[in-house]
């Protein structure tokens, strides 16, 4: 089997498909950096200006009234006016470079917003305000920042800050990329069955070697992601790997950037194994590369087409494939909210991998495939 593996790797090394996939990954990362630079992603004054407009338009739904503490207006109106004041304060402190003032007003703002969820008439202004989940993440983020004395205004294109942004996007496209990459994993071999039969090895070993060689290429993709971001160290600096990131992993938690990336990479590896097995089995069943791809993509989008499914079947591994949304607590914002736990997600994907291995073993040892 080792000889076969070596043979496979030599074939993979010269495969055009791999070369193009490597070029694609590199282009994607460079493109993303250019995009971030162009769009000014994470520009605090611009964000705060738009936030202020949101609150102003929420306020425009009310008739003008006395918003002082003992005024005759509703609690919600007073609350929104106070929010308005704090956002203005944040804008000023961002422009004047006063991080302490910024963080303090951010924490107060988050507290105020938390109160609004209980106030009467909240539904009417809901769309102008962040969701409960977003607000909670922001509040614990700033609380940690002030307690640790870490600078707030950072360059978003330093190495580690960029990686956070990159991994924030990878969650939604990693599965799609892998589905494209692996959908034809066995198709070439079906065209040369006589060749496969010639190998002095049982078929399941052959498949295992194929899976392992594909997996090793995917690991190289993951390494490539880090390598291609390296030029940013030269242009913008390294950044701070212990910078906090607010996440929801079942509870609201603070991860460091390093830990966040670690969890993401773990997810990416699990998902890669899962996709490879899924592609293997679907290839055998459907005998068509594109049908495999379409079935995989369909399974991927199914939970977002029918959000009810997520709360009905929390053990469905496809709920956890988009690990970025998972860590952002997006499942709490669905029409039927449910708190998905990221550790459970790894376990469910792991169980699915075991089930797929068992299925693959059953299928591949019955000799069905040999006649393909």
């Amino acid at each position, binding site marked *: 089997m080792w000889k076969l593996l070596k043979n496979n790797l030599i074939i993979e090394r010269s495969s055009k498909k791999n070369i*193009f996939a490597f070029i694609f990954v590199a282009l994607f990362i460079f493109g993303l950096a250019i995009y971030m630079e162009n769009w000014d992603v994470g520009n605090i004054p611009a964000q705060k200006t738009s936030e202020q407009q949101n609150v102003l*338009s929420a306020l425009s*739904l009310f008739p003008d009234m006395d918003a002082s503490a003992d005024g005759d207006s509703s609690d919600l109106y007073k609350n929104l006016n106070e929010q308005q004041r704090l956002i203005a304060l944040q804008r000023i402190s961002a422009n004047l470079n006063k991080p302490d003032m910024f963080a303090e007003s951010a924490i107060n703002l988050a507290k105020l917003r938390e109160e609004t969820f209980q106030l009467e008439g909240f539904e009417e202004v809901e769309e102008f305000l962040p969701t409960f989940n977003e607000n909670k993440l922001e509040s614990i983020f700033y609380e940690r920042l002030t307690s640790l004395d870490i600078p707030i205004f950072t360059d978003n294109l330093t190495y580690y800050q960029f990686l956070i942004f990159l991994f924030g996007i990878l969650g939604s496209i990693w599965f799609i990329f892998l589905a494209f990459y692996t959908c*034809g994993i066995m198709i070439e071999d079906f*065209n040369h069955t006589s060749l496969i039969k010639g190998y002095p090895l049982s078929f399941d070993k052959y498949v295992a070697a194929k899976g392992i060689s594909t997996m090793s290429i995917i690991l190289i993709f993951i390494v490539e992601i880090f390598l291609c971001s390296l030029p940013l160290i030269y242009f913008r600096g390294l950044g701070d790997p212990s910078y906090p990131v607010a996440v929801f992993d079942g509870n609201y938690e603070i991860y460091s950037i390093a830990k966040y990336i670690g969890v993401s990479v773990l997810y990416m590896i699990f998902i890669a194994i899962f996709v490879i097995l899924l592609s293997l089995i679907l290839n055998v069943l459907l005998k*068509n*590369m594109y049908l495999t791809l379409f079935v995989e993509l369909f399974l991927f989008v199914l939970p977002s087409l029918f959000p009810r499914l997520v709360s009905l079947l929390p053990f469905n591994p496809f709920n956890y494939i988009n690990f970025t949304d998972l860590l952002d607590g997006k499942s709490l914002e669905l029409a039927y909210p449910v708190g998905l736990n990221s550790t459970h997600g790894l376990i469910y994907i792991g169980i699915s991998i075991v089930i797929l291995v068992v299925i693959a073993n059953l299928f591949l040892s019955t000799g069905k495939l040999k006649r393909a």
Partner: protein
Amino acid sequence: MKPYFKFELSQFITNKKNIAIYVILLFLACFYALNIAPSYKPIERVDAKEIEARYTSRESFIQNYLNDPNRFQGMASGGLFIFPRWNELDKKRLESLNEGNLKKYASVTSKWYTFSNDLITSTGQYYYSPGYYTHGNLYASDDGNYGYSYSASRYAGYGEGKSKLSINVFEERTALQTLQRLLESYLPMILIICCVFLSVDIVLKDRLYPSLLKGFPISDWKKLLIKGAVALIGSVGIIIPISIGLIMIGIRYGFGDFGLPVAIYTFVGEPTYFKKGEFLNTSMGMYLLQNFIILILLFALIISLVLLASMIIRNEFANLLVGAMFIFNEIFYFKRGIGFFEEVENYPTNYVQVGQIISGYRNYIYNSSALTFDKGVYVLGISTGILILLIFVISKFKRYKLV
């Protein structure tokens, strides 16, 4: 040539992957018609209650301050100057809506939008409909300006035109208007991605049975031409599953007609940094026809790109990547207002968002005046021509034989 065409077409239609694409599109179209279209909430609603609330609070302000001795101090004078005129329009809107006189409602509403937009852009003290200022939208007032001017022009068209009016027409819910809205959002992307998928294996599938295909007494160049034509016909066939979804929407909300006005953002002369263009109406039929022509040209361009890639690189994964790069290239250089400095209209990748090109929205956000239908036909036509010429030249080399 004809037998080969028939052979390719039958292979194309019976291809499992192609059937799957049509089935998926049918599923998506039905899903949209049943699930997404009913929950569409336009920002510019026809809502008597909303108008009434605005009207009464301004009216009470006017009543309170009209005879107040201090009315010339502070902000009150501004309100007293503006509100009576604004309220007169709102009152007319309310009356015509309650009477059911939609024609009158349309023409008054058009005036209301023009008046409000001028007021908001010139004073900076009032705001557009709150719907534009959603959480995280950095360009809300730009969007509001576009939406108000667009609505003003559209409603003026309803008031003057002969189309049958209804609330659904006003809120752009009818089948044809839904198609128009979709063409301005993600439908072109979906169509072009489908086109890439349909044409991705049309050359490379032959490598499986080379001995069979060498028997056709036909040159490589002609084969490629026929393959391209088959892929183009197949891509145009995408219209069938989509029209089924539109029929479902039409039964529920009405079909609309081809005479309905569509407001087009047009720019006469050279853009300057502060000058904005104006909206002119065209008919729905004309709008859809122009969209269709640009889409066909884009299909032809994409197919020739994929054919060229299949000849040179000979790998299906690479074909997909080339297609994807063409489709998503725009994100890498897109920036609001950049059209003023750079000649984005010369890039063929700039025409992927077909509906936004025809409606002028791209011109608006690029701050350009050159992204038009004519320019699109010109650029896409020339690029397709160059690609086909390249295919012709390369097909003459023995090294790039098809099978």
